[in-house]
Structure formats: structure tokens, C-alpha cells
């Protein structure tokens, strides 16, 4: 059975995805890009980047932003407005619908879009290695019936069965699995290349319903690029008296540099703009070299970002929804990568927006999810918890957290590790299940605890207690402890171990980062203490076991060092403890040395603690002392 692909047929760019392994996967074009420009030369029959490259010399034949005319009548207000700035010829076609005229030939918007879809179809077939016959296509929430029909027709012209048309904001919500999280009211903030759309969705049983939508059809990333370009050109003009906008090549380089700087400033505080040989004056080359800070960029585009919030307020009003009632906010469109945009959205809605999915790809991903639901590739009954967001582990000697399942492990998953007792004759261990990123148990979330008793008395470190964590697809953690000697086992089931809110998870991660240095030091100190403790135990045991075989002066030396080590454990620093531990260890080794020198006694091994041996994959750790 062939796969159903999900297509985001955008105004500026289009994107396609398909469900694979239960997840939406973006299909790359044959040019190796994740999106293709929605640009077509219908006479030469070229599409995408190639069509874009000849736009300058073929302005009347290179059709872009055709989505603005899709399913609209020639007499529509918006069509009349767009005619003013679109360089190609638009006229009234059959039934008064808007059509384009290229070299005397008429093309409907459906036919133009069909060419984009044709390229998408063949790229998808190349990727999947099989024929593609069905698709889900997305449309803006405000598209009326005529516009939706036209979109469907475009698919049919391509030879695709358009299984369903879904709204772009709905697709975005599906991409984040918000239908499974039972988020009731969602705001989708979509700032794309050329348009801004804000939509309020409501989850009604299993379906998303559009409560209200608003936006600005001429506000997008292109406007942001333009502001930067103007700034750079004005800067150069002031310093050099030349307007780079009059030189086509300089203008192109400026445009590219502006876009590149904008992107760079989403991850850096400063961007270098370096354009050597940008132009010539009096036969001398001129260069444009400057820096653009994030702060300056935010100043330059601030008004554009502010502009988006008027439609947002209007949309909330139409939906009759108060800001506080919004459960989730979703960011869509490349421009939402800008930190200032994210900040303003967060400030406005008072919550962290969903933005982990690539904002250029999220609509196509959602269309693929819808395609998956229809073809049965997607199980709605399983909770959308793909990975465990925080590390899971147990508490070990010294109040340290020992991880078992690291964060971001795909579930279902499981891990088993061998632990042991911390004291001689310890007959029970307490398993304290923890969740979090901090090295110390007390700084993490306690999920539960239980005791495994009936461990046969033995020297510390000898018993083998197998601790297993099993995390199923529903996020239920079963922690089991089993004594390998007796076979006795105890376990607890913890539900909701992944039921933390996004905020809680982010906070925990942030806290861990903040305290990383201090935590590390503390953990090292504890580990040094544990090591020292162990060394004392081993030394005392060795002395006892070796008995008379240890020469008196060596025995005294060791006893003295045991004493000083015990003292530094009481009040010494981490370094002191480590130093004294090594000291003691050095002396201790002399016992063995001595014994081998005196006589080779078969069966008398150097007292090496079994705990010190680390077999591959089998880490023997001390369990917590429980009384």
C-alpha cells in the first residue's frame, strides 16, 4: 500500500513530509533542500529554485505567490490589490475567476500550483522509491470553499488523490501531538516568508475546530530582510556617498548578507557583515564591513513584531477567548526563530511556546501526521511520549543520584544494573527512584521508594542486587530490585513519571545547568568520601586478615594513616581526603609486596577488594544503608 504524503503548499515555499517509523519525516528535494520555492515558469515548465533564478529576466513569465489568487474571483478586493505589485499579467478567466496570462496562454492558479505539486510528487517518489498517489494538502484557515476546491483540483491535475484538505494551524497542532495531550485551546502564531496568520483552535473530542483567525497577508520574513537591507544601504551611502541599491549585483549581495545576518543573529549576539569589493569609486574598490548586533536588529524590526499583535488581539476577541485560557501556543514559520519574536510571544501569552519542531517544516509534518491517521500509520491511543524528558535513576551511597535511563531515551526502554550493599551484613536495600539532572539525589524529583529485604548477610559490596527499570510506551515506570543470590524481588510501578509539564521539565534542566559546577564539586567530594570510606574498610580488613604476616612497623604505619584519613573525613577538604586516601593505599600495597617478598604462599592473594574490580558492563555500586 503506497504512502500518503503530507504537503504544505505555501505562498512562498512548499514542503512535503511522510510518516516513517511512526514519525513525520521531511522529504528533501532532488536539489537537497527541505523546501522548494513556490515559483513556476509555466511556458518553460520549470519549477522551484531553477524558476527563481530567471525571475529577473523573465518577470512576466515567472509566477510566484500564486496562492494569493487561488480560488479567487478577478473582482475580489485582494486580487485587485495584488495586481498592483505582481509583475505578471492577471486577468479574468472562466466564471470570472482570476487567471494568469503568460505569452498569450492562460493558466489557472490550479494549473500553476499543479506544477509545483508535480515537482513535489516526483521528489517524493525519488525519496520513497515507490509511486505516490495520495496526498493531504494544507490550506490557510481562512480559505473559503472555492479556495479549498481549487487546491484540491490542483492536486487532481497532478494525478494525486487529495485524500483531505486540512487547515495549516491544525496541521501545526497535530505535528506537536497536541491532540493527544488534550490541550483544549491552542493559539498558532505563523510568521512565514510573506504572510502572518494567527489562529485560535479548540479541541472538540478528537478534532480541532477553528474558533477564529486573523493576520496580515503582507507581513513576513521578507519585510524583516528588507529593513536590514535598507539599514545597510543607508549606512554605506552615508559613509561613501554611493547608493548600493542602484547596482543590481551589489543589491543582490546586500540582500543575501541581510538574510544571512538575520539568521546568524538568532543564535549569536553579533553578526559580521563582510562584503569586500562591493562597488567601485574613482577606480578604487570599496568594501562594506560592519557589525550588526542583536540589539540593533531588534531595534530595527521591533515595529514589525509589534504589528503582529494587533491581529492577535483581534483574533482572541473574535474567538471570545481570554489569553489565560490558551493552553498551548505553537510557533510556525521561519521568522519565529528570532529570539525577539519568541520573547514577545512568550510575554504576550504568558507561556512557553511550542517550537521544537523546525518551524519551516511543522505544517508539512502535521499534514503527514494527518495522512498517517488516515492510513492507520498513527495510533491515536498511544500517548505521545516518544522520549523520556528527564534522566531516571536511583539514590546511592552518599546521597548521589546514579542514572539508569538517560534523558531523551526513546521509549519503551529498559535498563538493568547491578548494585550492592554499603555495609557489612546489610540485609536490605532501599531503592529510591529519582528523576532529574542533578548529581545529588535531594535535588531531583523523588518518584517513589521501596525496600528489598532478606539479603543474606555478607561483607559489604558482595551481594549482587539487580535493579531494573522498565519504561513502557505509556510512560509507566516499573522499578524492580532482585537479589541474585536468593532470587527475592520487589518492585513498584510509577505512573506519570513523564507527566511533568513542559515548564517543569525546562525548569529542572535550567536548574541543573545553573548548578552544574557546584554540583560537580559536591559529587566529587562525595565520591572522594566514599572512596576513603572504602579504603579504610579494606585496610582494616586487610590488617585483620593478614594478621601476623604484617611486620609491626608497617602495621603501625597503616594504622596511623587510617587514623589520619578518618580525621580528614571528619573535617578535611576534598583534596585532603583524596590525598590521605592515596597515602593509605600506597602503604596498604606494601602488605602484599611484603608478603611476596617474604615467601610465596600459594592461595594467599593480595587483599584486593572485589568491589574495586570493574567488569565490563557490570558496575558494582553500594546501595544505600537502610536501618
Amino acid at each position, binding site marked *: 500500500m503506497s504512502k500518503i504524503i503530507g504537503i504544505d503548499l505555501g505562498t512562498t515555499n512548499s514542503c512535503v513530509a511522510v510518516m516513517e*517509523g511512526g514519525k513525520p519525516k521531511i522529504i528533501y528535494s532532488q536539489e537537497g533542500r527541505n523546501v522548494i520555492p513556490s515559483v513556476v515558469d509555466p511556458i518553460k515548465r520549470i519549477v522551484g529554485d531553477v524558476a527563481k533564478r530567471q*525571475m*529577473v529576466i523573465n518577470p512576466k513569465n515567472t509566477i510566484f505567490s500564486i496562492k494569493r489568487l487561488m480560488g479567487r474571483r478577478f473582482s475580489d478586493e485582494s486580487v485587485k490589490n495584488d495586481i498592483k505589485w505582481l509583475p505578471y499579467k492577471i486577468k479574468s478567466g472562466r466564471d470570472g475567476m482570476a487567471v494568469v496570462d503568460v505569452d498569450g496562454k492562460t493558466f489557472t492558479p490550479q494549473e500553476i500550483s499543479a506544477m509545483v505539486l508535480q515537482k513535489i510528487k516526483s521528489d517524493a517518489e525519488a525519496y520513497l522509491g515507490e509511486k505516490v498517489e495520495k496526498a493531504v494538502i494544507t490550506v490557510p484557515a481562512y480559505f473559503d470553499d472555492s479556495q479549498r476546491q481549487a487546491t484540491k483540483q490542483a492536486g487532481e491535475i497532478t494525478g494525486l488523490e487529495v485524500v483531505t484538505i486540512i487547515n495549516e494551524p491544525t496541521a501545526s497542532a497535530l505535528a506537536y501531538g497536541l491532540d493527544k495531550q488534550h490541550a483544549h485551546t491552542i493559539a498558532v502564531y505563523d510568521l512565514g516568508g510573506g504572510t502572518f496568520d494567527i489562529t485560535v483552535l479548540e479541541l472538540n473530542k478528537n478534532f480541532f475546530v477553528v474558533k477564529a483567525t486573523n493576520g496580515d497577508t503582507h507581513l513576513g520574513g521578507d519585510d524583516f530582510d528588507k529593513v536590514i537591507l535598507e539599514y545597510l544601504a543607508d549606512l554605506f551611502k552615508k559613509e561613501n556617498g554611493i547608493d548600493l541599491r542602484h547596482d543590481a549585483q551589489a543589491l543582490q549581495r546586500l540582500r543575501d548578507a541581510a538574510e544571512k545576518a538575520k539568521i546568524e543573529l538568532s543564535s549569536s549576539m553579533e553578526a559580521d557583515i563582510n562584503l569586500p569589493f562591493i562597488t567601485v569609486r574613482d577606480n578604487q*574598490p570599496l568594501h562594506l564591513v560592519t557589525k550588526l548586533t542583536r540589539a540593533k536588529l531588534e531595534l530595527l524590526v521591533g515595529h514589525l513584531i509589534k504589528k503582529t499583535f494587533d491581529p492577535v488581539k483581534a483574533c482572541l476577541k473574535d474567538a471570545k477567548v481570554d489569553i489565560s485560557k490558551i493552553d498551548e501556543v505553537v510557533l510556525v514559520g521561519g521568522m519565529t526563530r528570532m529570539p525577539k519574536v519568541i520573547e514577545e510571544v512568550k510575554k504576550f501569552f504568558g507561556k512557553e511556546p511550542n517550537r521544537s519542531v523546525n518551524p519551516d517544516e511543522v505544517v508539512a509534518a502535521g499534514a503527514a501526521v494527518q495522512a498517517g491517521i488516515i492510513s492507520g500509520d498513527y495510533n491515536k491511543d498511544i500517548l505521545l511520549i516518544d522520549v523520556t524528558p528527564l534522566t531516571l535513576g536511583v539514590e546511592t551511597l552518599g546521597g548521589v543520584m546514579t542514572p539508569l535511563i538517560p534523558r531523551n531515551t526513546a521509549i519503551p526502554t529498559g535498563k538493568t544494573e547491578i548494585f550492592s550493599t554499603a555495609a557489612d551484613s546489610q540485609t536490605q536495600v532501599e531503592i529510591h527512584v529519582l528523576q532529574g539532572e542533578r548529581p545529588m539525589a535531594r535535588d531531583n524529583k523523588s518518584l517513589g521508594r521501596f525496600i528489598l529485604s532478606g539479603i543474606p548477610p555478607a561483607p559489604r559490596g558482595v551481594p549482587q542486587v539487580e535493579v531494573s527499570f522498565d519504561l513502557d510506551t505509556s510512560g509507566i515506570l516499573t522499578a524492580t530490585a532482585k537479589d541474585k543470590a536468593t532470587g527475592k524481588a520487589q518492585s513498584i510501578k510509577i505512573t506519570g513519571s513523564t507527566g511533568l509539564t513542559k515548564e517543569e521539565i525546562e525548569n529542572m534542566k535550567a536548574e541543573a545547568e545553573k548548578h552544574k559546577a557546584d554540583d560537580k564539586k559536591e559529587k566529587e567530594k562525595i565520591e572522594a568520601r566514599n572512596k576513603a570510606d572504602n579504603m579504610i574498610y579494606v585496610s582494616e580488613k586487610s590488617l585483620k586478615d593478614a594478621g601476623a604476616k604484617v611486620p609491626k612497623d608497617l602495621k603501625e604505619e597503616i594504622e596511623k594513616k587510617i587514623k589520619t584519613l578518618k580525621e580528614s573525613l571528619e573535617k578535611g577538604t576534598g583534596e585532603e581526603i583524596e590525598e590521605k586516601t592515596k597515602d593509605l593505599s600506597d602503604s596498604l600495597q606494601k602488605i602484599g609486596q611484603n608478603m611476596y617478598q617474604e615467601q610465596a604462599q600459594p592461595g594467599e592473594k593480595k587483599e584486593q577488594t572485589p568491589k574495586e574490580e570493574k567488569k565490563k558492563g557490570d558496575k558494582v555500586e553500594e546501595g544505600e544503608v537502610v536501618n
Partner: protein
Amino acid sequence: MDSLIKDKKKKPSVEMYHWKAALEKTKKEVEEYKNKYLRALADYQNLEKRVVDQRDNQRNNIIQELIVKLLPLLDHMEKAEIFSKDKGLILAKNQFIKVIRGFGIKEIDVLGKEFNPQLAEAIDMVKGEKDNLVTEVLRKGYLYEDRILRVAQVKVSKKAN
């Protein structure tokens, strides 16, 4: 002794109805899981193929990615050469060209030829005698082993109309 006895006949058939329904449901489930399994297996096998392809192409991909980022250096050296006939600069430039040639990078020949959007991007239109000819190369284009590494940026002629 008007005792009731259970109607032994009815009971088995009611039970059997339930068992039959349960069996049908289970059969359906099995079919569903079988399909899901086969699909997951197919996805996995496709992924395997793709991973191998990607791995094999990795060297090429990395070279392409690296060289495309270094090309502006060459562009600027060539521009500098227009204004400065410094021997050292020209030597450096030639050395750079030699290195990238060693990796299979070749310049795309577009000047004077018919404009082809597969190979070049038109930045400006100029008046000319013939239509659609590349009159000036503003930025050179390069191939990497028959693949387009970077398209050229050119000026194209249009007959005065």
C-alpha cells in the same frame, strides 16, 4: 418439588456467541498488528538503505559543504586582482584554485553562452543585440564532479523592445 433447572442448551450458545465475537475481534487486531509490523519493517529497511547511501555519500557531502563556504574567498581574491597586480596575491589565488581542482571542482562555463537557469542565476538584465545571452559573469559558478556546487550569477542580454 417445583424446582427450576438451568436450560443447559441455551447457555453454551450464548457463551459461544461471546467467544466468536471475541475471536473476531482478536483476528482483526492480529491483522492490524501484522500490518503495522510489516509497515514498520519496511520503514526500517528503507532507513537502512538510506543510511548506507548517506554514509557512502558522506565524504562528498562534506567536501561540497566545506568548499562552497570557501568559494567567496576565491571570489574576493579574483576581485582584488582587478585592482592589485600583486604577484604574491596572484600566486596565492592560483594555489587556491589548484587545491580545489584537486578535489574535482571545475568552473562552469557560461560567459557568452545562452542563459541556462540550471547553471546560473540572472541578477540583472542588460540591453543587447541578441536575446538571452550571458554578457557578464558577476560571480563564478562551480561544479563538483558533474553536480552543481554553486550556480553562477550573471547579467543576461535582452533585445531592446
